[in-house]
């Protein structure tokens, strides 16, 4: 997909507080949206739409299900163990995810998508983006979160 985000996607993104991440200058995040867990996590992504495509491919190739809540909770639990709390500023979240990602690489917790070796949390962040955007495979529960 191209860089431009479609109107449909924008609506979905806005619904889960994603738009701020995708178009940081164009669309300020509402406080209410900022507080949703999935939104907070997705806000760390430099390009949620591309991340969603990675997530979709991962879910298809591993026949994995899951919805925003499942992925968000999993990631949050890992970050929590590193002292992160929901509501922390995005920079703090980003750096907590970064630390966790590097930790996973060091500990061989990687997943493979079309040959790319990424960390489990990265893959789940991508799956979270896919579930939020509604691009996750059909068997996945469509997200109503946010």
């Amino acid at each position, binding site marked *: 997909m191209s860089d431009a985000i479609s109107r449909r996607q924008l609506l979905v993104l806005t619904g889960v507080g994603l738009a701020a991440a995708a178009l940081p200058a164009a669309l300020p995040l509402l406080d209410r949206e900022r507080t949703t867990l999935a939104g907070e996590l997705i806000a760390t*992504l430099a*390009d949620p739409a*591309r*991340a969603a495509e990675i997530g979709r491919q991962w879910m298809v190739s591993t026949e994995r299900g899951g919805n925003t809540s499942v992925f968000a909770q999993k990631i949050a639990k890992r970050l929590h163990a590193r002292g992160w709390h929901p509501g922390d500023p995005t920079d703090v979240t980003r750096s907590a995810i970064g630390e966790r990602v590097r930790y996973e*690489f*060091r500990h061989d917790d990687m997943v493979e998508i079309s040959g790319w070796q*990424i960390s489990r949390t990265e893959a789940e962040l991508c799956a979270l983006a896919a579930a939020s955007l509604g691009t996750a495979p059909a068997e996945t529960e469509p997200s109503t979160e946010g």
Partner: protein
Amino acid sequence: MFIDGRNVPDGTIVEAEVAIIGAGAAGISIARALRNIDARVVLIESGGLDFEPDTQELYEGESVGVPYALDTSRLRYFGGSTNHWGGWCRPFEPIDFEQRDWVPHSGWPINRADLDPYYVRANEVCQIGPFIYDDPAAVSEGGQYQPLDLGKEVMTRWFEYSPPTRFGWTYRQDIEKASNIKTYLNSNVMEILPNAEATKVERLRVGTLTGRRFEVRPQTVILATGGIENARMLLLSNSIEKAGLGNGRGLVGRYFMEHPHIERPCEIMITDPSLVAPYYQTYTQSAGANIRGVFMFTADYLRKNRRLGTVMTFYKQKEVRTDIDVEEKDTEAARDIEPGIAQLIRSTSSKANESPVLAMRYGTGCATEQAPNPDSRIMLSTEKDALGLNRTKIDWRLSPSDRANLRHNIEALARAFGAWGEGRVRIRLPDRDKWDEAEGWGNHHMGTTRMAADPRKGVVDANCKVHGVENLYVAGSSVFTTSATVNPTLTIVALALRLADHVQTRFTRGV
């Protein structure tokens, strides 16, 4: 003095203290080291000073295992295969010499420290410049170009380049002018003839393609005809020992090893190419040497994970951009998600990027160690060459476990780049049950007269002397017990210089 064997009268007998068979990297290094000593040295070379197709044709043979080119992987004239080598040089790692319980048949009877002084001298012979292989400070240009911090499993190591030295051209005058060396060109050793007990070499039977036949009677013989031909020569020397000279235990020709090369086994994406020092990407002048940074695997990693080594090179391939035209776009799924992977790295490590250029994709190349395998071997074919000698039959074997090992090493590279933060790795090496075709190789012929202290386990001893034959030595990569990961010639030359010292000491002591 150079003598054309084709002009030597039939039946001539040449007496010498030392005969060196073959004037390639090993033979020329030894002859140079023995120049002007108080001993007559005869250097016997199959070819002339230039390439001749009829002589080269003697290298043809049969390949019955993993398909292998016997002819194009070596050259048969003065200077040997250095007439077309690439000049990549690097000493072996200390672990390469060790007995590793996870690598059957590993363990040299010498260690890296035994070779250290000779590596320094070999560097000079190969005209390489300063010996700075393992010295990041020397190549960092005042701290400017630091190696990537890739953790505990992957390390940066540096190759240094020989110009590449064409041994025949560069050292021709040294050899020609040495008062004690006679070089017989266009002269093929056809058989090494020992005494009746096969414990001592007495004569070398020499022939030319024009039909001349003469003999050399040396006190000491050094066989330096290359990693395949050394085994063939011993197998052909079967007038007394029917299985071949030095082959009482059937080991000659076995354990043939190469360095399988895989083109682009993985790709590496890095957010910011300025983080990557120039020496990783191409030949780079630094501190008086021409260097190249590569990735290798640490001894701790190899030990802990019971792996064989791999060396990986790395070069700039393409920018990863968000604004690629649809037509330009690669349809491979991995390519479609490439900008997304770049953004994913940027999400947690670098700043998000304003520009459409997100990262740089690097291609890789690799050469990998193969475990010694007695069934991977050089034998004699029933076909005969123009001299009436049995041609070479090669049965190169590669094992699925060697391939699996390579994949595990690439996964370690992926871990290392991910943990560093600014890079990710895409593995392209397909999983296969078999490894019956080589995607490439290094033209490195190793292991066929392997070194071992125990005569039951190897053909030559720690001094490169053939077990059981008191005056026959072997020089070249055929003596390697294991193949290590890097190119062999620096080690061939180091071992050759060590052997020259040993032979010279024997003469000085009169033994």
